[in-house]
């Protein structure tokens, strides 16, 4: 049997997966998408974002005080952070696997998230880390000097 906290974690985790898909679709970050067609990505994102709320409120009473089994604000914040982090991790794995063959030109190492327009997250990250491994001395100096 799931506890209230587990239910909350699942709510945030799955909804965050959906929200990331919607946000990435509107931001044109193809490398993050599970489905490449923008409408399909948004539809999938909407289902992933909304369905957990329906489930969460359908399976039990949710207006409960924290000393009667609900979650206090710090616990909510912690589980929200963990759920979002997990969603980011799953997005990394799934989108990198699905978009592994995406090749719209080599990602520029200093593009940051913008590199995900043309490459999967894993490829963009690899390019960025490789660049940083080679140039860390010079770039770190530049970063810390503003």
């Amino acid at each position: 049997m799931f506890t209230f906290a587990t239910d909350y974690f699942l709510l945030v985790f799955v909804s965050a997966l959906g929200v990331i898909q919607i946000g990435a679709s509107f931001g044109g970050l193809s490398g993050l998408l599970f489905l490449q067609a923008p409408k399909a990505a948004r539809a999938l994102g909407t289902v992933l974002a909304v369905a957990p709320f329906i489930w969460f409120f359908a399976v039990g009473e949710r207006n409960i005080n924290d000393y009667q089994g609900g979650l206090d604000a710090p616990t909510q914040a912690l589980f929200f952070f963990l759920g979002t982090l997990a969603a980011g991790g799953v997005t990394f794995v799934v989108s990198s696997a699905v978009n592994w063959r995406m090749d719209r030109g080599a990602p520029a190492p200093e593009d940051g998230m913008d590199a995900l327009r043309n490459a999967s997250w894993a490829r963009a990250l690899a390019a960025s880390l490789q660049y940083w491994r080679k140039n860390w001395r010079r770039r770190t100096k530049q970063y810390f000097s503003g």
Partner: protein
Amino acid sequence: MAKADETVFLWLNGLVGKLPFFDRIVELVVSDYLIPVSLALALVGTWFAGGDKLARQRHQIGVFVALSAMALSSLVVFTINAAYFRPRPFVDHEVTRLFYAPTDSSFPSNPAAAAFAIAVAVWAVNRRLGSLLLAAAALYGFARVYAGVHYPLDIVAGALIAIVVTFLTFKIRDLLGPILTWVIKVGRIFCVA
């Protein structure tokens, strides 16, 4: 002022039970897990929004401001709560509650302050999404009055605190600018900013 506040509260709360379906909707809206979680998830989406690098950075700074403003608004609310305790409406009045009975001070409303802080910060960087979030925050405030856990003035005060604090947070953003820029630069190494 307090008398008018109580009158409006009693009128609104007096409607509970007349439309059972509406009451059920309010029970969902007033929950700690529908609008607060939706607003926080909207911040996650805002992080990825923006058509180009510059627009995305503006949105991401908006997310930082929202989080800072939410924390600072809560701090202001807790300080006021410590100095002035206003009992919840159900303590002093015959009330039909659609929510559990909180024990902390009623004025100003911390949930309203947190919700409006997020909504106002997002509105500052994205008018369309921000307007939607402002509507959600206002609905949340209304639901807390209707459900019998806040007076209208508690919500108004919470919202005003959030608006002022978020505005000030945007103003001092220039002071925090180098830190924010550095965090975003580090995020860029991992392609998360």
